C-alpha cells in the first residue's frame, strides 16, 4: 500500500466514524461533532492528494483546505447558534424529540 492509499484509508475511516456517530448519537451537538469529523476527513483527503498528486506547485490542495477550514468554522458557529436557539425554544437537544417537521 503506497502512502497515498494509506492516507486515504485513514481518511475513509475517519469519515465512517464521523458518519456513524452522526447517525447514532442522540445529542445534536454530537451530530455536529460528527459532521466536523467528516469535514476533516475530506480535508485530509485533499492534502494527501496535493502531496502525492501531480502539480503540487499549484498549491491547489492547500488553498482548498484553507477555504474548507474557514467555511467549516463558520458553519460550526452557525450550527451551534442554531442549537442554542432550539434549546431555548424546546429545552432539549435530543434529536429524537426535535421532530416538528414530521409527516
Amino acid at each position, binding site marked *: 500500500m503506497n502512502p497515498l492509499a494509506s492516507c486515504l484509508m485513514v481518511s475513509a475511516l475517519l469519515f465512517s466514524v464521523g*458518519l456513524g456517530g452522526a*447517525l447514532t448519537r442522540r445529542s445534536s451537538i454530537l*451530530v455536529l461533532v460528527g459532521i466536523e469529523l467528516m469535514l476533516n476527513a475530506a480535508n485530509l483527503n485533499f492534502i494527501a492528494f496535493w502531496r502525492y498528486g501531480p502539480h503540487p506547485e499549484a498549491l491547489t490542495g492547500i488553498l482548498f483546505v484553507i477555504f474548507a477550514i474557514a467555511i467549516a468554522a463558520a458553519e460550526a458557529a452557525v450550527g451551534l447558534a442554531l442549537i442554542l436557539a432550539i434549546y431555548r425554544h424546546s429545552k432539549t437537544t435530543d*434529536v*429524537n424529540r*426535535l*421532530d*416538528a*417537521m414530521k*409527516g
Partner: protein
Amino acid sequence: MVWIVRYLWLIPALPAAAAAVIAFAKQRQRRLAATLSIGLMSCSLLLALAALAHTFSQPAVEYVNFPWIQFGTEWLKLGWLLDPLTAVMLVMVTLVGLLIFIFSVGYMAHDENFTRFFCFLSLFAGAMLGVVIANNLLLLFMCWEIVGLTSYLLIGFWYQRPAAAAAAKKAFIVTRIGDLGLFLGMMWLYSLSGTLLFYDHGAGCLEHSAVAAMAAHVAAFGLTASSGIGLLIFCGAAGKSGQVPLHVWLPDAMEGPTPVSALIHAATMVAAGVFLVARVYPLMAASAGGGPSTALEVIAWVGAITALFAAFIAIAQDDIKRILAYSTVSQLGYMMLGLGVGGVAVGMFHLITHAFFKSLLFLGAGSVIHGCNGEQDIHKMGGLRKLMPITFVTYAAGMLALCGFPLFAGFWSKDEILHSAHLWSVSAAPYYMGAAGALLTAFYMTRQVCYVFFGERREAAEAVSGHAAGAHGISGDVHESPVVMAVPLIILAVFAAFLGFIGTPAWPWFQGFLEGRRAALDPGAFAGSGILPLMAVSSVIVFAGLGLGWWFYGRKPIVSAGAPDALEQLQPGIFRALAKRLYVDEFYDATVIRAAWWGSQLFDWMDRWVWNGVVQLVAWIVTGIAWMDSSLDTYVVNTGFDESCKGFVQGGRLMSRLQNGRVQSYLRVLGVALIALVLLLFWSRKG
C-alpha cells in the same frame, strides 16, 4: 229545406239546455228550475206543433245528415229526420211532458230536491225527443241510453230509501240486458249495410235497396238477415217496453215519484221500445216471399203473451201504482201485438191514446196519494169520490178509456188491434188472448176504482209514510189537489175521451196520416170486413168485465181495511200466486242472480289467489333481486373498496414513516443513497 226541418234539432236541444243550466243552479232556486223547464218545454211543444203542421202538407220523409266522426277514410254521419211518425211522437211527448211538468210543480212542492227533479226531467225530455228525431240508429242508441240513465236517476230519486235505490238498479240492469241485443243488432246491420243512417238519399239502411238485400240474405236457422236484425233490435225494445220476460223492472220502478211514473213509465220511455219497432218497421216487415216475416210473428206472440200475463197479475195487486204498472205492461203488450199483426199505424195509434189516458191515470193516482198524505195501499183508501171529485171524474174518464169503453179513446185503438189480430194469417190465438186481456183489464180497473173511490173511508192504523215531507200535517185530512195539479188532469181527461175519434174506421185519419195518404170521411166503412161485429164483441167484453168487477167489489161497500179481497176468498191459492206476481222475480233470483253471484265468487277467488299470486310472485322476485343486489353492493363492492382503501391507508402510513421529522433518519437515507449512487457509478464505468 224548410226552416222547421233544418231547426228540428232545437226540439230536443231546448230541454237538454234547460237541464244543463239547472244542473248548475242551487237547490233553492226552484222558481228558476221550474220556469226554465216549463218554458223551454213549451217552446219545444210549439216547434213540434209546427213540425206536425208541416207534415200535413209534406208527408214524405225529410232529413238532415251531418258528418260526425272520421275513422280511416269513412265518415260516420248522424242526422235527424221528420216524417208523420216523428211528428206525432214529438207532439205527444212534448204535450204530455209539459202537462206532467206543470203537475210536478204542485206534486213536488214540498220536496227539498225540487230543482234536481226538474233537471232530470228536462234531461229526460231532451233525450226522449232525441230518440224520436234520430236518423241514425247509433244516435238513437245514444239518446236511448241517456233515457235509460235518466230513468235510473228518477226511479232512484229518493235514493236514501233502499227500495228505491234497488229498483233503480234493477231497471237499469234489466234494460241493459235488452240493450245488449239492440247493440248486437246494430253491429250486424252495420256490417251488412255499411251504414246506420235510416234515410240517406237511397243509401240508408231502411231504404229499399238495403232492406231488399237484407231480406234476401239468409242467416242461420232459415232466418233472413232482416228478421234476425229485427229480432235483436226487438230485444232492446222488449227491455225498454217491459215485454215478458224483461218486464220485472217496471212494477218496481213505481218507487219513483208519481210524475216520473206517469211520464216515463207510462207515456214516453216505455213507448220508446214500441217507437223503435215502428221506426225500423221496414226492416222488420221485409220478408223473402211476402207474408209476415219471422220478426213480426215473434213480436206479435210476445206482445199477446205479455198482454195476458200482466193482466192476470194486475188483478191481485194492492198498491195503486202497481196495478197501473202491470196495466202498462199489459197495454205495451197490446201495442207490440198491434205492430206485429197490423203494422205501424195500428200500434202507434194505441201508443198515442195510451200515453194520454195512462198518464192521466197515473197523475190521478198521484193526486190520490198526495191527498191521502202518502198512502198507496188501496185497502186503506175508500170513499174518495166525494172527497176528491175532480180527481174522481178525471180518473173515471181515464179508466173507461183504458178499459175500452165504447166511444172513448182506448176503445178505438184497442179495437184496431183486435181487428188486425182477428185477421192475422198466422194464427187466431193472439186475438183470443187479447180479448181475454181486455176482459181482465176492465175487471181489475173496476176493482181498483171500487176500492179507491167507492165504499167508506178506511184509514191506516199506523202513521203514514212514504210521500216526502208530509206537510199536510195530520193524517185523515184528505183533500182535493191544488189547481196546478188539477188542470193537467182535466186536459188529459179531455184527450182521453175524445182523442180516439181521429182513428175511427169511419175516418181513419191517423192511420192515413202515418202512411202518407189522405183518408176520407166514410161512415160506410163500418159495414166493411166484419168491423161492426167485432166492435159489438169488444163492447160486450168490456161490459162483462165492468159488471164482474162491480159484482165482486162494488155491490157491497168495502168497510174495513183488513177485510180479505173478495176474489181471494173465492180462489185463495190462485189469488196469492197472482199477488206474488207469479213468482217471476223469485225465479230470476234463483237462477240468474244466483249464477251471477257464483260467477262473482269465482272471479273474486281468481283475483285473490291467481292474479294476486302472480303479482305477489313478481313483487317477491323483484324484492329478491333487490336484496341480492344490495348484498352484492354491501359485501362485495363495499368490502372490496374498503379493503383497497385500507391498503392505501396502510401504504400511506408506511410511507409516512420516512418523514418522521428526525434528522438522523434523513441522514441515514442520504447515506444509503450515496452508497447506491457510488456503486452505480462504478459499475457503469466498469461496464
